[in-house]
């Protein structure tokens, strides 16, 4: 039997020690009429059969190693150095659990401490926790922090160009709480969305009831704007500013911490974590030291052992559910431990030079793609000003039709259909370009869309 080592003889000996005849007797306390149901599951497979079936299933998917990928929208196709997976596959890391016993968990604890440090330094903040489930839930936790920190205020202002799924998750999380979420009413059209996403427009809607403003940098549409003036006006009204950001962009761009953000959070997937159809990913979360007691999530702190040697422990657990129960700052227990290790290894290996270089490659390639695509008949580039990773192209036909053409005829995974989230933005495609897209890929997309246009797609 796979993974169960008992021999018949051992089972007999053990039952005799317990003082029962059969294993079934161990379940005498389960109501008889529901005891031992017959489960209708497929017949078990051996390991070699199982992996064959799984290989078949996996091969029924399109994947970005064999298809040029221009799809981002919150999950990005980046290069992952081999060392990252090799470290992750160390059984000492991935078969351990939450480091409740620090003396025999220093590996996990120090790696978490280093992750916290790397995120703190990358975001320009003072403290980072040991992860949330993903960028969306980290954003929802920023709302909970703000409601606890800025008492008696009930309004949360969301930028309309905050990731649509993050806005949905925020709304799910606060269903049971007395709070008003707004600022992201559906835009009429592209100019309306762009106008309402601007920092000065957001700032003009902050009032004395506002607890928190959430902006994204670069925003969901790829646009980048200095948020320093926004932070200043938010603070003048006594509210907090949370900035959802992309960690690769911070290899190049001014960190939100330097702009005055109170919380910097987001999706850590670009840091060495494969796309994996949406998870497991990594929600990173950084804030100011002053808010540390209101922050949720596990935290690792430095201390000493009995001999005065440096060591690390989970700390400030008085905030947490296993101590505070109903009065905890959050219910979080298991988070994304191993994904923080991926991010720590990635950031350590990329380092000061490498991350900057990756960010520059993304920047130059995205701008080259935008420039080339803007010349294709029928397509127009509607993004203005600096952008990172992504830009928006207005297209002559429904995006679904164009993407079907790109895949069927050119084996290209096209961009994101903004009409899915913004009814006013039908025919607008969000195109992502990373260091993984070669010039050949980009030129191929340009040629393909030219062909689409020539076939009558541009009419």
């Amino acid at each position, binding site marked *: 039997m796979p993974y169960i080592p008992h021999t018949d003889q051992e089972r007999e000996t053990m039952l005799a020690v317990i003082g029962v005849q059969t294993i079934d007797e161990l379940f005498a306390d389960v109501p008889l009429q529901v005891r031992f149901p017959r489960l209708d599951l497929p017949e078990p497979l051996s390991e070699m059969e199982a992996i064959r079936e799984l290989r078949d299933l996996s091969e029924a998917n399109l994947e970005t190693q064999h298809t040029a990928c221009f799809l981002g929208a919150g999950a990005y196709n980046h*290069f992952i150095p081999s060392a990252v997976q090799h470290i992750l596959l160390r059984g000492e890391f991935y078969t351990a659990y*939450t480091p409740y016993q620090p003396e*025999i968990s220093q590996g996990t604890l120090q790696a978490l401490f280093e992750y916290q440090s790397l995120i703190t330094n990358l975001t320009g903040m003072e403290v980072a926790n040991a992860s949330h*489930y993903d960028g969306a839930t980290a954003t929802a936790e920023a709302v909970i922090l703000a409601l606890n920190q800025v008492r008696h205020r009930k309004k949360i202002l969301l930028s309309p160009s905050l990731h649509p799924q993050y806005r949905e998750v925020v709304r799910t999380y606060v269903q049971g709480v007395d709070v008003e979420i707004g600022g992201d009413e559906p835009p009429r059209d592209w100019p309306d969305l762009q106008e309402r996403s601007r920092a000065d427009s957001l700032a003009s809607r902050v009032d004395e009831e506002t607890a928190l403003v959430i902006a994204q940098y670069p925003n969901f549409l790829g646009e980048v704007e200095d948020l320093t003036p926004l932070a200043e006006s938010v603070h003048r009204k006594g509210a907090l500013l949370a900035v959802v950001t992309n960690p690769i962009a911070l290899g190049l761009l001014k960190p939100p911490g330097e702009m005055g953000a109170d919380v910097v959070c987001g999706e850590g997937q670009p840091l060495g974590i494969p796309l994996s159809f949406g998870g497991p990913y990594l929600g990173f979360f950084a804030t100011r030291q002053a808010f540390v007691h209101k922050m949720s999530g596990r935290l690792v702190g430095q*201390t000493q052992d009995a001999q005065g040697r440096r*060591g690390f422990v989970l700390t400030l657990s008085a905030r947490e559910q*296993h101590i505070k129960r109903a009065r905890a700052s959050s219910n979080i227990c298991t988070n994304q431990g191993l994904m923080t290790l991926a991010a720590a290894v990635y950031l*350590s290996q990329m380092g000061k030079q490498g991350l900057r270089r990756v960010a520059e490659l993304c920047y130059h390639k995205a701008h*080259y793609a935008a420039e080339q695509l803007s010349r294709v008949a029928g397509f127009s580039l509607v993004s203005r000003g600096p952008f990172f990773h992504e830009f928006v192209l207005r297209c002559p036909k429904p995006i679904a039709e164009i993407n079907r053409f790109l895949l069927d005829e050119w084996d290209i995974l096209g961009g994101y259909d903004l009409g899915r989230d913004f009814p006013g933005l039908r025919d607008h495609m969000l195109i992502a370009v990373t260091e993984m897209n070669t010039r050949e890929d980009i030129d191929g997309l340009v040629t393909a869309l030219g062909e689409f246009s020539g076939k009558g797609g541009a009419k």
Partner: protein
Amino acid sequence: MTEPLVYEISVPGREGVALPTTDVPESKLPSHLLRADLPLPELSEVDVVRHFLGLSQMNYAVDKGFYPLGSCTMKYNPKVNEDAARLPGFAFSHPLQDPSFSQGNLTLMYELQEWLKEISGMAGVCLQPSAGAHGEFTGVMIMRAYHRSRGDTKRTKILIPDSAHGTNPASTTMAGLQAIELPSDARGNLDLKSLRAICDQTVAGLMLTNPNTLGLFDENIEEIVKCLHQCGALLYGDGANLNALLGIVRPGDTGFDVLHFNLHKTFSTPHGGGGPGSGPVGVAKRLIDFLPTPIVGIVAPGGEEEPPLYGFVTPKRTIGRVKAFHGNFGMLVRAYTYIRMQGARGLREVANHAVLNANYLRVRLRETYHVPYDRLCKHEFVVEGKWEQAPGVRALDISKRLMDFGFHPPTNYFPLIVPEALMIEPTETESKQTLDAFVDALLKIAEEARTHPELLTGAPHNAPVSRLDEVRAAKQLVLCCRPVSLKADQEAA
């Protein structure tokens, strides 16, 4: 044994990755938006590998040995699971690619939903929640939405036994409901009298872990269900302890309305040093419409030769999304692999042996360690780590001393209803030899507690570090290190 911090081994100018040169013309960078400094370390690949390998050596893990951490189900994690999740078609597929090009992923998710329904007796399953606590929050939100949809807004209380995990009351508070604690009775069951007294039209539901954190199957489960349903409340099942019930009893058949699964406990996905987990939620028929979005459904039926077309669907009165995209997909692949290799027979054997192992340990230890609720247990049991003859010794000392014998300690000081609790969950993957060695160690430690208590109070003696000063960590908060150069600048300033 200590390892320097990653910033301490950084050398200015060193690089860890060779990246391609730009193959496109460079664009002008937005100078007003550029960062002045990027305070990351500078290391070569070999520096990075040795550093993290060094750290790995300071960890205890299931792959190293016995890890009887109660309520965490630290079973062996089959290696094939890791290979399956890393197959390129899974690992490199994009969550937003068109579902018609993700049919392998969607088939897997659909099948896993169906299997979890079959195993648990629930009518609908959503795979989106990322961990047990996330599933709990989702489940409580579903119960809340159900009552409100019926105009029943007075139900604001969630009943929670005193033996429950802390996540239960914390999830309740997050959902804007009030957690009410109920006592346990002398046999370790939920106290029926207290339940009957409190059940009325203000109760939204009860969160029950069964078997509970004492490892005991609630002997009054039928009465509990009746009591709740009679007053219009719902029964929530914390599936943390589902390992004991596979093929033994389906929670849905006993009347549970909501149940979360912990794929990282019951279905062998690794714990990752604290995640990623996966906490799918199953519900009874009347709650299906409230599940989070999306779930996987059949959007076009198949023919004789054709498989059906799978797609994402949104339940009619969904509580909404609880995370971006569709769940911790890589964990779903691992759980699928595990269930596919076990089948119904294998899962039953899992529960059989998890319970056999726990009872064997309980009986072998009970002469030496007081078992406060000493009856047939399920997958785990709780002993008291204290003796009158060893007044200076606490449960924590026993735990630390176990490290010297090469074992991970049990869960300490939980559940809260047992003083000096040691909660022991062996799981089915451990052999009799391992269990016997563990018993020998615990018996030896009990003897040491009387004869040489300092061996316990000073333990561990063989770990990478000795006991750590947790008070200092909380009082003199150091949560981050800075680059050495930056630190020098700051100190100079």
